[in-house]
Structures are given as structure tokens and as C-alpha cells.
């Protein structure tokens, strides 16, 4: 079976500084995969490369059988990969509803629309007319997830959903993930909380300094293996 999304030997640079040194990665249809690793390990850069925000060579990323590396971000979202960016990054001068509608700019057909999102996160319907950035952190994260879902992706990339949120809010957000993926959507979650990453995913990749240091089935990896891959002792 060929993977839905595949990176092979993926390299990425910020100017002269190399951030990724040949990442091999696979995501199958309907699967949730977690990426863990220390700060600066290249997790966010990897997601940015997948969405076209960081340049890469065409054949280094294949999606649905086609080479998509180096395509502009707008083209990649139209093909079905959406990103919930680190730090949420809502549009400050747009209301909650307008932020969500921005996600629909790619005009991909699919199950997600405003009524359905408001059913998933009812609080957003109450606050639809408020500026997106006036909401609490957890609610902003819901808007960011909703904005990505509005493009009806087949792959949802989530970059540190728990960043800066209270544990109870993190739980609420992650509780929604199985519902979101219930219809066969694949997801990649980048997460600092290793226990959460193991619980939410089928497989885990651990990044270290731009390499894949460890990968395997989520429940089979031991604490020792993970901490070794994390810190490279």
C-alpha cells in the first residue's frame, strides 16, 4: 500500500542554515501520526515544508501519488493539506466567522461548513461576530482548527495545539480530534506532551536536530527509547 503523504530525503533550509537533513516520513489514509521532539528539532519546519511555506524539491514530498514539493501554499491547500499553525495566528482584523470563512477560500467540496463547525464547537457560534483575537486561548485554537477544516482537507496538520493552554482546555481540544477524523481524514499532530502524543496517535516519529531519531507504533515505544531519541544521550 502506498502512503497518502510521503516525504523522502526531505531537506529544508532557512537561508544558509539547514533545518531538515533528509526526513523520511509516511502517513497513510485515515491514520493519525504524532511528531515529538525538542525545540528546534525541525518539527514545525517539517510541517511548513509539507504546506509549501518552506521550499523543497518536487520529488521530496509526494501526496496522492503526485510530487508536490515546492508548490505554492495556495496550490497545496487546494489539493487537500491544511495546517493549524503554531501559535494559532488568527487574522486580527477579522471576526470569528470571517476567520473561518477564510479557510473556505480554497473552495474544496466536503463535509465541513459553518453550521457543522458550530455544532462541533458551539461556543464559536455565540462569539461569531467578535474579533477572532478577542477570544480566550482555547477558543482561538478552536477557530484555528475550524479555519483549517473549512478547506475540507484530507490531511490535517496540527502544530502544537496545546501551546500556552491550560490542561483542561488541552483535553477539550484533543477530545474533538477523534470526531474530526471519524470520516477518514488523516492527521499529523506535532506535540510537546509525549503522553498526549502517544494517546492520540497510531504511530510516532521523534525528531532530533533535523533527523528522524526514532519511529514506531505509539503504544510500543518505551519511555527510555523516547528520552534517548529526544536528547540523544
Amino acid at each position, binding site marked *: 500500500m502506498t502512503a497518502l503523504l510521503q516525504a523522502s530525503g526531505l531537506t529544508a533550509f532557512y537561508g544558509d542554515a539547514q533545518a531538515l537533513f533528509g526526513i523520511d516520513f509516511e502517513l497513510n489514509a485515515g491514520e493519525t501520526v504524532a511528531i515529538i521532539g525538542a525545540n528546534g528539532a525541525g518539527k514545525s519546519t517539517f510541517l511548513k515544508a509539507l504546506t509549501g511555506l518552506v521550499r523543497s524539491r518536487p520529488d521530496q514530498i509526494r501526496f496522492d501519488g503526485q510530487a508536490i514539493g515546492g508548490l*505554492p501554499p495556495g496550490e497545496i*491547500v487546494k489539493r487537500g493539506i491544511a*495546517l493549524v499553525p503554531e501559535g494559532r495566528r488568527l487574522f*486580527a482584523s477579522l471576526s470569528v466567522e470571517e476567520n473561518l470563512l477564510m*479557510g473556505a477560500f*480554497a473552495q474544496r467540496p466536503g463535509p465541513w461548513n459553518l453550521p457543522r463547525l458550530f455544532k462541533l464547537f458551539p461556543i464559536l457560534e455565540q462569539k461569531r461576530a467578535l474579533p477572532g483575537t478577542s477570544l480566550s486561548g482555547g477558543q482561538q485554537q478552536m477557530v484555528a482548527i475550524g479555519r483549517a477544516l473549512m*478547506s475540507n482537507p484530507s490531511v490535517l496538520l496540527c502544530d502544537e495545539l496545546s501551546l500556552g493552554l491550560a490542561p483542561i482546555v488541552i483535553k477539550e481540544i484533543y477530545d474533538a480530534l477523534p470526531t474530526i477524523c471519524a470520516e477518514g481524514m488523516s492527521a499529523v499532530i506535532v506535540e510537546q506532551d509525549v503522553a498526549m502524543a502517544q494517546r492520540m496517535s497510531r504511530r510516532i516519529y521523534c525528531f532530533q536536530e533535523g533527523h528522524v531519531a526514532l519511529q514506531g507504533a505509539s503504544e510500543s515505544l518505551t519511555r527510555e527509547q523516547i528520552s534517548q531519541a529526544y536528547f540523544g544521550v
Partner: protein
Amino acid sequence: MLETLLQGMLLGGLYCLFALGQSLMFGVMRLTNTAQGDFIILGAFAAIAGMNALAALGWGHGSAPLMVMLALLPLAFGFGYALQRWVLNGTLGRDPLPSLVVTFGLSIVIQNLLLELFSADPRSIETGGLNTASVALPAGLAIGVLPLAIFALALLATGALQWLFNGTRLGRAFRAVSDDKEIAELMGLNSNTVYALATAIAFVLIALAGVLQGMRTTVSPADGPLLLLFAFEAVIIGGMGSFWGTLIGALLLGITQQIGFRIDPGWGIWVGHIVFLIVLVLRPQGLFPKTRG
């Protein structure tokens, strides 16, 4: 006193049209177009050239200014789009200097081109008597038909622009790209096209302002920088990124200038600058700021 206020408001309407394009371009892409005034003058001269061409074809009667204006607006849209897409987009970035230098260069080019083509003589657009027609008001006041029409157009343009920004899909795209270009592109927007559309709309307003300036008074190739100054002052007084703010700023500038002219004919513009400086010192973000960051 009432008359001075009234005339000042009407003058402010014209300044508002000078400034709206500037306000739009700054709001969407933080681009300060230092050739704004020269493009307004270029618009006026384009209309004069169009009138001359029509007259040469034997079509010099009353509807000519309107026809020329209607033909000029779509041209300005296309010109603005092309200018942004293929010239100004290349100057955008964290550093504001490249765009300032390029638009400043354009300003010099336009001034000299107009000087070469039309000489330094002041000219105006023949309106068939519209520029001297007036309506009588109670209490012995009379106001010009043309300034009144300009004021109405200014209100209309401000309202239309605010609606475009807040109520349409394109406006949403303008604000999204202004907030966070990278994420907007992630949503499928092409920021180069969005920028080009913003400048295209700004140039329609610039052409409109140019034609009206040419109808109301005279224009000469070196007039641009002063108009830029008025546009700037209106935008800064009103607060960056708010069109109603720009309108209020323009009205305030018009009224103060008119009061200055009333005190001494040499004082009008100077008093306008003083009020601008006072606002800049006391409230540097302007009266109704909308732009963040």
C-alpha cells in the same frame, strides 16, 4: 463663519478623494506611495489630453468631460493593477525603503514627463460652465455645484470603500493579507494578485481625484507634491487604515485651511500644517486608528 465652515467642508471632500487611495494602499500593504500627488496630476492631464483628442474629432460639447472621465477610470484600474503586479510588488518587504525610493523616483519621472509633454503652463479641464454654477442657500449663502458634487462623491467613495472592506469577500482578502500574509497564502490567496487589486482600486480613486481637481481649478506638472502632502495629512490626522477616519481628517484639514485663508489669504495652507503637527504631537496614532502593529 458658517460660510467658512461650509467651504472648508467642501474643500475637505476633495482632500478626502486625494487621500483615500493612499489610505487603501497603506492599509492593505503598508506601502506609502510618495507619487500619489503626481499620479493625481497625471490623471488630470490624461483627462485634458482626452478632451483635446475629442475636440480634434469635433466632439467638444458639454458631455465631453463626463465621457473622458468614464473612459479614464477603467484605464486607471488597469494601470494600477499592472504597476503593482510588475513594479511595486517587487519593492515590498520588511524594509519600507525600497518602495519609498521607487515611488519617489516615479514621482520625478511623472513630473518631468508632464513638463515635457504639456509645458509648465497651468491648465484646467473645460466643464462648460459647471465650475462656476452655484446654488443659493438661505441667509444669503451660495455654494458651488461642482464642489458640492465633489463632496457627494467623496462621501460615496468613502462609504463604498468601507463597505468593500467590511462586507465583501475581496475586502476580507484585503484585511487577511494585511494581517498575516503567510497565513493568508496558506488559505489559498495569492498576495501578489490581492495587492494588485488594491492598487487598481486606489488608482480609480486617484484618477477621479485628478479629473475633479482639473475641473475645479488649474493643474500644472509641479503640483503633485503639495497634493501628496494634503493626502498624507488627511490620512495621518484620521488614523491609518480607517476610511471614515480619512474622511474626517480631510474635512478637518479643509476646514482649518479655510479658516486660515479667512484670517489671511497667505495663511490657509500653513494653518493646515500647524493643525496636522498638533495632532501628530498629541495623538500620533491619529483620531480613529484601525491599523495594528
